[in-house]
C-alpha cells in the first residue's frame, strides 16, 4: 500500500516496530515471500500494480500457506483448497467465511517495511 500522511505519522511514532525485510524486487510480481516473525510466518505479497500486502501465512480454512497461492487483482487464492482472501483485509471472499490477520506493510525507497 502506498504510504499516506497518516501512515507516515504512525510510522514515526512506532518506528521501533517497522522492520525492513527486503527490496520490492525481491518479491515476484503476482507472488509472495515468507517472513519469519514473532507472530509466526507472515506472507508478504506484491500485485501487478506493485502494491504490497501482508497476511498471516495461515489460511482461515485449514491453515494452508497463503504465500504459495495465486495472486490476482487484490486477492489471493489459497493453494490447498482454493478459498479466496482479500489481501488488504484478510477477509475471505464470499460465500466463504473467515479471516486471517493482516499486518501493516509499506514500501519506501524501494524497500519493503513490515510492522511487527
Amino acid at each position, binding site marked *: 500500500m502506498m504510504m499516506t500522511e497518516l501512515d507516515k505519522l504512525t510510522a514515526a511514532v512506532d518506528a521501533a516496530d517497522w522492520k525492513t525485510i527486503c527490496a520490492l524486487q525481491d518479491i515476484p510480481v503476482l507472488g509472495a515471500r515468507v517472513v519469519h516473525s514473532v507472530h509466526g510466518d507472515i506472507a508478504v505479497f506484491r500485485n501487478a500494480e506493485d502494491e504490497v500486502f501482508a497476511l498471516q501465512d495461515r489460511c482461515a480454512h485449514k491453515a494452508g500457506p497463503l504465500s504459495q497461492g495465486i495472486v490476482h487483482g487484490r486477492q489471493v487464492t489459497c*493453494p490447498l483448497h482454493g478459498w479466496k482472501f482479500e489481501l488488504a483485509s484478510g477477509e475471505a471472499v464470499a460465500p466463504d467465511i473467515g479471516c486471517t490477520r493482516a499486518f501493516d506493510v509499506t514500501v519506501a525507497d524501494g524497500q519493503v517495511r513490515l510492522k511487527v
Partner: protein
Amino acid sequence: MKKQKLVLVGNGMAGVRTIEELLKLAPDLYDVTVFGAEPHGNYNRILLSPVLAGEMSLPEIMLNDLDWYRDNGITLHAGRKVTKIDRVRRKVIAEAEDGSVIEAEYDRLLLATGSVPFIPPIPGKELSGVLGYRDIADTEAMIAAAGRHKHAVVIGAGLLGLEAANGLMLRGMDVTVVHLADWIMERQLDKAAADMLQASLEARGMKFLLARQTEALVAGEGEEGARVCAVRFKDGMQIPADLVVVAAGIRPNYALAESAGIYCGSGRVRGIHVSDTLQTVTDPRIYAVGECVAHRGTVYGLVAPLFEQGKVCANHLANFGIGRYQGSVTSTKLKVTGIDVFSAGDFSGGPDTEDIVLHDRQGGVYKRIVIKHNRIVGSVLYGDTADGAWYFQLMKDQQDIHEIRDHLMFGQNHLGDAGHKGENKAAAMPDTAEVCGCNGVCKGTIVKAIKEKGLFSLDEVKKHTKAASSCGSCTGLVEQILASTVGGAYQAVSAHDKPVCACTDLSHGDVRKAIRQHKLLTIPDAMAFMEWKTPNGCATCRPALNYYLISTWPHEAQDDPQSRFINERSHANIQKDGTYSVVPRMLGGITTPDELRRIADVADKYAIPTVKVTGGQRIDLLGVKREDLPKVWKDLGMASGHAYGKSIRTVKTCVGSEHCRFGTQRSMAMGVDLEKMLFGMWSPHKVKLAVSGCPRNCAESGIKDVGVIGVDSGWELYVAGNGGIKTEVAQFLCKVSTSEEVREYSAAFLQLYREEGFYLERTVHYVHRVGLEHVKKRVVEDAENRKALYGRLLFAVQDYKDPWAERCADDAAAPLRRQFETLEA
C-alpha cells in the same frame, strides 16, 4: 455524466435477473426504477410448489428482498401495476390499488411482465374457489382453502397441475386431476412413462380422470352461493369440488405492450416480439425478456432460457453490444419429492427416428432415448434420471453418438465410480447421505443451500457448498440434485461453450483459437486481446492460459511461473501442513543401488519423516521443508519426476522379455525410451503411460493415457484409459511392429491431445469429447499428419532442462531459488 433512466416493468424472475446481470457489468450507468404488480420483492416462483406442499416457507424463497433494492440504489414500486406506456413522452404510468398514480420517465424500458394462467371459457369460471396457479396470492388462497375444505379438483395434468395437486394432497385434501388428453404430461412424457408416473401418484392417493372435457363449474347453494361446489363433464359425470385449480396452460402477458403499439404477433405465436438482442421489433428503446416474449417464433415457459435472455439483454443495456440470443433447448423435471421424471426434446418419433428403450416395470425404471441420424433428439426418463443431464448435453451439442451407442443406456461417463458407493439415484438418497466424499457434504445440505440461497447453476452450488469442487466425481449427482430441486430451471452447460471462468465469456476452445490465430505470446497480451474482465485473471484462468500459450507456441511464448499452481512453481507437491513431497525420476521404475543409497542418505540428512513407494513405481520423500528443497535436490543428484505437473508423470513397466519367462518384448527398455522422449512435456492434464511385455499386462496398460502391450508380432497400442476418479478401460488404437513406431504413434496421439485438449481435461475425457474415430483418422490413417504431430512434440520438448538441476545449481540465478528462502523480521 448524468445517469440514464432505466425502467423495469415486472418485478419477476427474468426482469430482476437482467438487472442483476446489468449491475455486474455496468453498476453506475443507470438510475433503475422497478414496477411490480405484486406487493413483494422478487421471489423464486418455481419454489411456490414446495411452499404449497409445506416443504418450505415464503421467506425462504425470496431472491431479492427489499434491502437488496435499497442497497443497489434501485427505486422499487411494489404493488403498482403499470397501466400505460407513453412512448412519445417516454414514460410509464402506474396505478396502485388505492387509485393513486405514479409516473416514471425512461431512456430505456425493459418489459418483463411474465405470463397469466389461461382459464378456458367454461361457465362458472368466475365463481369464488376457482383459481389459477401463478403467484404468492394464489398459493396463499390454496393453502387457506385446504384448511377449510375437503374436495379439490385440478384441471390440467401438466407440470404445474401435478405439482399443485401434490401440494394440495399433502395438505390433506382429496384431490382429483382432470385431463383432456389420454395420458398425463403428454407434452413432456410418452405414454409408458406417464402410466408409471400416474401409478405412483395414485399409490399416494391422487385420483385421475383422463380424456374428460369439463362442461361447467357448478355453484353451491345457500349462503355460500357464489362458491364453486362441483365440476360437471361433457359425459354428464359430476364430482364434488370446493376448490378448482385451473392449470390448463399459460399465456404470455403482452396486453400492456400491445396497448402501446408494440408488435405482439398475430395468429398462433403471440407475445412481445423481440430480436436476438432482446429489443422489441417496434421500438429499439424498449427491451423485453421472460415469458411475455416471443423470440424467433418461440415463447418459453421455463426459467433457464429466460436467464439466458437476461444475460444477453444486460450486455446490450450495458452498451457492450456483444452476444446474441439464439434460442434455447429446454428440458423439464417434475418437482414432486421422491419421484424422478425427466424429459427433453422431441420424443414423438417419426419415420427416420429410432428408439433405445429400457423398461423395468417392476423396478419402476423407464428410459427412452430417441435418435435421429446418430444424434439424440429426445429422451424420457422415469425412476432413474441419473443420466438426464448427460443426454441433454449430448442433445444440445448434437454429438454423434454412434460410437457410444452400445453403452448409452448404461450411463454417463463423467459420473465417477469412486467415493460415493456407486450411488446414482439422487431422489432415492436420504438427506443424510454423503454426496461429496472429498468435502463431506450431504444431500440435505445441498438441497438447503439451493433453496435458501436461490442457486441455479452447478458453479453456484460448488461455490456455496463445496460439493463437487474438489475431485469432481460427484458432479453428476450434484447436477441431479440441482435438477430435481429447481426443475426445468436447471440447464446443464455444455463443456463446448462454457466460459473458462468468470473473468471471460469465452470458452476454452475460443481462447485456444484466438491464441493460435493471433499469435499471442504472453498472458497480459492474451488478456488484453480477448478483453478479460479482470486485471490479471484468477487461479482458474491463468494456469489455463499459460498452458495454451506454451503448448501452442513452444520456445516462443513466455512461460509464467506465477500463473502455475504451487506444485509446478515449486517443483514438488505441497502437503496439507505446507511441507512438500519429492519424487525423483526413476525411468521405467528402474533404479540402481547407488540411487537408493543417495535417497537413503538424503532422508537421514534432512530428517524426512516418510519414505514411500508410490503407485507409479518410484520413491516418494514426504514432508520436506520448503527451505530444504534445493538442498535435497542437489544431494539426490536425480532429475525431477514431475509428480506434481500437468505433464508426463511416469511410464510404468513390467519386467518383460529380459527376465520374464512369458515376455515377448523388451518392455523395460521400451518404457525407459518413452519416458525419456516425453521428458519436459506439458499437457492439459497429467499423462501416464505403461508398457507390458505380454498380454498378462502386469504394468496395467489397460488404464493408462497410453498403454502399450507387447505381443509376439509387435506391440498393441491403447489410449485414453484412466485409473483415477473415473475408472475407464483404454481403447484399442492400433497395432504396430517396431519400437520406433511405438514412439511415433504414442507421441502423435499425445501431441493431438496437447493441441486439442482443454486444460484439466484428461485423455479419457478428451477422447470422449472428440471420438476415437477422429483420433484414428489423424494418428493412424494419415501417415503424413502423424509424422507432423510427432515432429511437433519432439520440437516442443527439445532442450528442456531439468528444473531441479536448474534451481539447485550453484550459479543459479537468485530469482529461481529465492521463492524457497524465508526472510526474517
